[in-house]
């Protein structure tokens, strides 16, 4: 089968001030697939992920170089509409970060920003997004309560629903389960697999089982370099690089 690429990354370098954090990274993101990024902590997974919707723009002194395209268009080109880009490429963070507003206002935040004002439309969006994030049954009777009153796992699904509310094509997830207990983690994993049908997912994780369980493609990173990028089965059964093998078998360092 032919997977189409949503994003292509090639020869990509990044510096925080004088310190280079990404070296010559290459990978791509396939449509309607889950792509996982694994590697020891500090190797640059989050950094790479945050480049994909230009969230690194808000870091002082961050500089990039190289090719990163979204549907063939270089996203670091001058004049790129960053806001529109982020609307198409949403992001879920490591720690759930709902706004200190009601559940409803959290979800309608994005649509309102992007110009939807009709109440009925907004309500449909609230319901649809919460259902997609498998949260509707748990919160439909307390939409006007503070989002901070939800449990950690619910908060994270609310953040996913919030991202879904603006209909992105790609969802970037940065260790979305690392702050959660095993049951909440399982729910998020199921959700990610469920989302794969309609969305393209890139997920950073330091949990190899998670990557093996849910992803179609996996990239292994090490000290700022993309050591190996391939189909997940291949990475976990027949990695071509020795470092990768040592990492996935837990014989590291």
């Amino acid at each position, binding site marked *: 089968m032919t997977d189409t690429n949503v994003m292509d990354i090639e020869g990509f370098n990044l510096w925080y001030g004088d310190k280079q954090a990404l070296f010559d990274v290459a990978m791509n993101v396939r449509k309607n697939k889950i792509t996982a990024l694994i590697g020891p902590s500090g190797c640059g997974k989050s950094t790479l992920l945050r480049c994909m919707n230009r969230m690194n723009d808000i870091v002082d002194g961050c500089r990039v170089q190289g090719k990163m395209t979204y549907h063939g268009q270089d996203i670091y080109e001058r004049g790129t509409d960053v806001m529109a880009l*982020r609307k198409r490429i949403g*992001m879920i963070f490591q720690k759930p970060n*709902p*706004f200190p507003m009601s559940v409803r206002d959290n979800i309608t935040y994005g649509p309102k*920003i992007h110009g939807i004002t009709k*109440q009925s439309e907004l309500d449909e969006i609230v319901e649809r997004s919460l259902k997609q994030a498998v949260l509707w049954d748990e919160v439909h*009777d307390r939409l006007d309560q503070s989002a901070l*009153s939800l449990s950690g796992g619910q908060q994270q699904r609310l953040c996913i629903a919030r991202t879904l509310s603006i209909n992105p094509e790609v969802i970037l997830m940065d260790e979305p389960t690392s702050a959660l207990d095993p049951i909440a983690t399982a729910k998020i994993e199921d959700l990610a697999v469920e989302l794969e049908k309609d969305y393209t997912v890139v997920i950073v994780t330091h949990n190899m089982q998670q990557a093996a369980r849910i992803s179609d493609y996996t990239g292994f990173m090490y000290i700022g370099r993309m050591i190996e990028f391939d189909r997940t089965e291949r990475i976990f059964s027949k990695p071509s690089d020795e470092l990768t093998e040592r990492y996935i078998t837990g014989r590291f360092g």
Partner: protein
Amino acid sequence: MSDGSSIGKMKKFHHDNVMKYVLMAIASVTVVIIFFIILFILINGAGAIGDIGIIKFLTGLEWRPSAGSYGAVPLITGTVMVTLGAILFALPLGLGSAIFISEVAPKRLRNILKPICEVFAGIPSVVYGFFGLIVLVPMLRGLFPDHLLFGTSWLAGSIVLGIMALPTIVSVSEDAMRAVPRSYREASMAMGATRWETTRRVVVPAAISGIAAATILGIGRAIGETMAVMMVTGNSPIIPAPLWNFFEMLRTITATLALEMPDVVSGSTHYSALFLLALILMLMVLAINYAAKVIIRRSRRKFGDSAQPLTPSRSYLAPLYNAPSALQMLFILCAFVSITILSLLFVDMSASLILASVITVGLMLFMAVGSLRSSKYRQYKEGLPEETRYKISKNSSRMLRSATLTGVFIFVWMIASLFTDAFISAAVAFVVIVAIVASAPAARRMSAGWKEKIAHSSLTVVVAIVVIILIALVYDIVSKGLPALSLDFLFGYPEDGGTGGGIFPAIVGTVQLMIGTMMIAFPLGIISGIYLSEYAKNTRSTRIIREAIDILNGTPSVVFGLFGMAALVIYLGTGYALIAGCITLAFMVLPVIIRTTEEAVIAVPKELREASLAMGASKWETTMKVVIPAAFGGVVTGLILSLGRAAGETAPIMFTAAVVFRSSISLSLLDPVMALPYHLYFLASEVPGSSVMQYGTALVLLLMVLFMFAMASVVRYKYNKNIKW
């Protein structure tokens, strides 16, 4: 050691307990002082209630002690009005600057702007008053020659106070916005919101309690201000006519205390009336600070994880919120008409229209918010149908909009009516409203990027205005003060009634006052702070003590002056004396020192204490060897800052220690002294033709205070660098 009994005897029990009681004894001296001050003011003020009658005092429209009329209304109105004006001036500028510094400015610019703000918060009020009197007042007179005969006015007072409140507002609300977790901003930007949208819809709402607290603290500072307002408001105890006429002169409570205290006979009605005024002032500040405290506490809860459950609105007005909108409109109309008619009995037509409109706007806002809240609750509790909820929310947002528009209309009308007749002003206000309504759709259609550009450039303009004001102030004083500085000026005595010579005795006097203050306040303050934070248990009595400290902490400095004069100068009979000034200043800074010491000590991590105690050190040893060294930087910073504040204060010394002229330096504690802030006040307000001397004095005072600030930040920087946790 195998001897089991060696752990049975507590060797250190003894000295630990002794130290505890020594500390306690010293701390209780402080407590006695604090309660003594509060009681002294209460008792003296109570006398007036008997003589004048509290109702008569609070409702009397005339303040003329010479004629025996003690009506506090003009003074209270003066205080409220000048503060209100100050906030109206300072809030947009302060908030805009805070947003700019926290959300827009690049890091390097922020690192410059933030400390500048903090420095300006430390400039003595007499210097602001001097700037107001010498620069602002003539400027206003030039701008409004038909309205301002002298220039000294409510307007001038509000602007000066506003400038003084600016640094507090900027710095505290910037802190509140900084405290909004970065993750909120990221979440918003990750959904394609612009920076401005993120600021407006996420950061500011999340920080709103902190911003409110900043505003309230600014108000608290403005209300208690003495010297600056006294120098620029003209001090006539009249109620402005019309009430919003900011060109009128007025007089605040603080100015009244400062002006009348020196001539008053101890024990007379006038004397206790002044104490009663002081009491009212304290209550006002107390109420304001309490509001700030509640709001800050609530904002802490918001960033915690605890849920805020929806509460039903238990108001009796609930039926009103839930009424159909036609009925609500009818109600509002009725309210408007009846209030207008009622108030016509007391005031003229335009005043009653204004009064009615203001109340109506308040009512509309109240109803809009109320109905929104109760509809949410009802939907959640009673399953109110969605459709009804839309209707309600649409209704209330319409009501909010009309309330805002009406508010703008009244405001523009009021201001315009000061310049032309009522009909033309109404027309002007009408045009403004039409312009707003007409431009609304265009504004709504503007792209997010454009909105951001416009917002950010307006913020830049706001910051530029603030920076220009502050720089103008410093530049004016430095450029005109520098030529005055010479050896003769610094080491000479005043000549020709203050128009020539030098300020040597004032410099020495200020140093003497500071040394004395230091010697009294430092030991008492530090030990009490340590005792309260390390030893005192959290009982009812320590809570009361803390409350009392907070009350004194917020008490305006002029009230301390009043206390010092009555208790020391008159009652103890010291006369104007160095010692009386030192004690008064020491009492004034005592609460600050206790509080900052406590905070620095509490900030020392528990683990350090536990590590020391776990090695068998006694509590006293732990306190001395671990806690205090770790808290040293914080404590010393607090000490220097409080001393800097004392050095610049005028009101507490002007009726306890300071005189206008000394022909020699005296080291006696019982002699009066000259002091820089008071000398500046005296020259600026009483000695025409002493401009050079004034600027020189202001510059020396400024340098002295800024030097202390610089020292404090060096200390803080040094210790923050060494200690990390």
